[in-house]
């Protein structure tokens, strides 16, 4: 080893401390998930860890509860609509931002990204006041609009990153080879952006699917899945919640992993 490569004892100490810190942080983040999954497979009447015996009792209880199923479907289709709207609007916005120069562009960019940094409770409260004025509380359209705003930073950021790597000479090549601007967009630009847009759609879906605070403020009488879980938790702590949580964890894990793989693929392909 080259002498200057040796971090020395002090360096080794720091690197060990960082590794320990990282492991502790992972445990802290993952422990609740690791507990809820075995609990969901328990037989006991109450939430208990470790479970005394295993069964699918609470999964059956979830699938046979019409309230839970209805809330799940509501959340699912709202998330699908939000995902589609946010992806289309976000992709068009990213295209517009990448191809124009104007004063206040970075301000507009910041404005679109704002929902990522504004505390969600502030956003929810503001929406509540606004929707009250507009008599929109309790409307599905209102919740969809709010979720689209909340999800929009994902498609804008992901598609912008892909566009930054995009070689616009490809569009020139398309034109000189005989394609109109519209066909260049459909045959060259859009296929290039497809993985980034699909990743955006998945992330946007989950922004809406597991969103609780805004739903609590503005949905009124009907339930989304997170809202239903929340109200169940307040009334009684029943292991059905653990089963729902386990299902949610599984779906989210698969979805976000797929989204992240797509995003990385989009970036790697752009780098070629």
């Amino acid at each position, binding site marked *: 080893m080259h002498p200057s490569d040796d971090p020395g004892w002090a360096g080794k100490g720091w690197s060990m401390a960082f590794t320990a810190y990282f492991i502790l942080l992972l445990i802290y983040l993952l422990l609740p998930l690791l507990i809820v999954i075995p609990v969901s497979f328990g037989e006991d009447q109450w939430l208990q860890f470790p479970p005394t015996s295993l069964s699918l009792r609470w999964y059956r209880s979830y699938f046979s509860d019409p309230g839970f199923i209805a809330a799940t479907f509501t959340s699912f289709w709202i998330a699908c609509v939000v995902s589609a709207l946010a992806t289309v609007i976000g992709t068009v916005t990213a295209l517009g931002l990448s191809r124009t120069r104007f004063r206040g562009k970075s301000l507009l960019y910041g404005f679109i990204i704002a929902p990522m940094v504004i505390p969600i409770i502030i956003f929810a409260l503001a929406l509540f006041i606004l929707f009250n004025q507009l008599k929109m509380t309790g409307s599905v359209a209102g919740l969809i609009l709010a979720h689209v705003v909340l999800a929009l930073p994902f498609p804008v950021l992901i598609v912008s990153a892909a566009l930054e790597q995009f070689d616009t000479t*490809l569009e020139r090549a398309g034109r*000189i080879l005989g394609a109109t601007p519209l066909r260049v967009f459909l045959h060259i630009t859009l296929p290039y952006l497809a993985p980034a847009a699909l990743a955006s759609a998945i992330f946007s879906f989950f922004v809406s699917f597991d969103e609780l605070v805004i739903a609590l403020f503005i949905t009124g009488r009907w339930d989304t899945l997170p809202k239903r879980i929340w109200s169940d938790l307040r009334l009684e702590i029943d292991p059905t919640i653990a089963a729902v949580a386990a299902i949610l964890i599984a779906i989210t894990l698969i979805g976000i992993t797929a989204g992240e793989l797509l995003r990385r693929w989009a970036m790697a392909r752009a780098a070629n």
Partner: protein
Amino acid sequence: MRKADIQTGATVDFQAVGRSFGKLDVLKDFSLAIAAGEFLTLLGPSGSGKTTALNMIAGFLQPTSGDILIDGKSIASLPPERRNVGMVFQNYSLFPHMNVFDNVAFPLKMRRASAQLIKEKVEKALELVHLADYAARMPTQISGGQRQRVAFARAIVFAPRVLLMDEPLGALDLKLREHMQLEIKRYRDEIGCTMIYVTHDQGEALTLSDRIVVMNNGRIVQIGGPEEIYDRPANRFSAEFIGENNILRLQPNGKAGHWVIEELKQPFASPAAAGPAPQALSIRPEKIARLKAGEARGPGSIAFDATIAEILFFGDVIKYSARLADGALIKFKEHRAAATSVMRVDQSVTLAFAPGDAVLLADE
């Protein structure tokens, strides 16, 4: 064998074309008539306006003044997709989500050709560039040289009458570049279209072109065939930009057609040429010979003493840089067969050149 009857080139005429970006004029009063089927190279340093001229034929840029005609018809109002011009880009610009076949098929699909015709033409184009077996590969699965050949196939598959090439070999390494120059010569013999080639590489320009247009600062500096451009540079810019050259300053000697070469302190005479008064002469390194001890100089030749300052050994050729009495450096070349041995640094030599090999240059 040329199959010019299959595909014939179009003429391209620049008529006093100008282009400015804001206050910057990148092309000034550019007039040029390109013959049908000609291989013409726009040669110049970056910022000379050569790529701007090319992009205006493609339709990516509009002239701010003047007009461009293809086959005598103005193309000003035609968008790029309706100009029927092929183009090869420096970075290949293959569509990354399409395989080789689909890339080459793209211009035909845009022209709504039948599947049968597309298949025939793509196969023929891939055969021309020797990539018939690569149709199913993705662009990432082939080498740089192969990508550029696919780009050529894609640019000519729809039988354009003009093919534009924007530094197509710039991204390739030296060996591959030389190989691709031979390939391009072959393509041009097999397809008869007009080819307009942009490069800053004077070697490429000399090898490939029928005619070379030397450009600098948005203006045409000289137009001519490769030999003419090399042997008779019209001015100092051409003399310095194309090939290696020695530029020596001339001082008027009172009499018309007589000067003193400043660096050599020797008289130089030439029939006074019309046009601007020459301020310098250029002499190619290969035109300067070393006189062996006791060897008589040729009648009328200009001889001078120098000391070897630098030696570049190329195997077949040795390039020397020698210091003159006044400190200036002069380059000369010797072929290995003629040279008895490689000289040493600081060795004294006597060099000579024939006045007829020197070219008189005005500054502009």
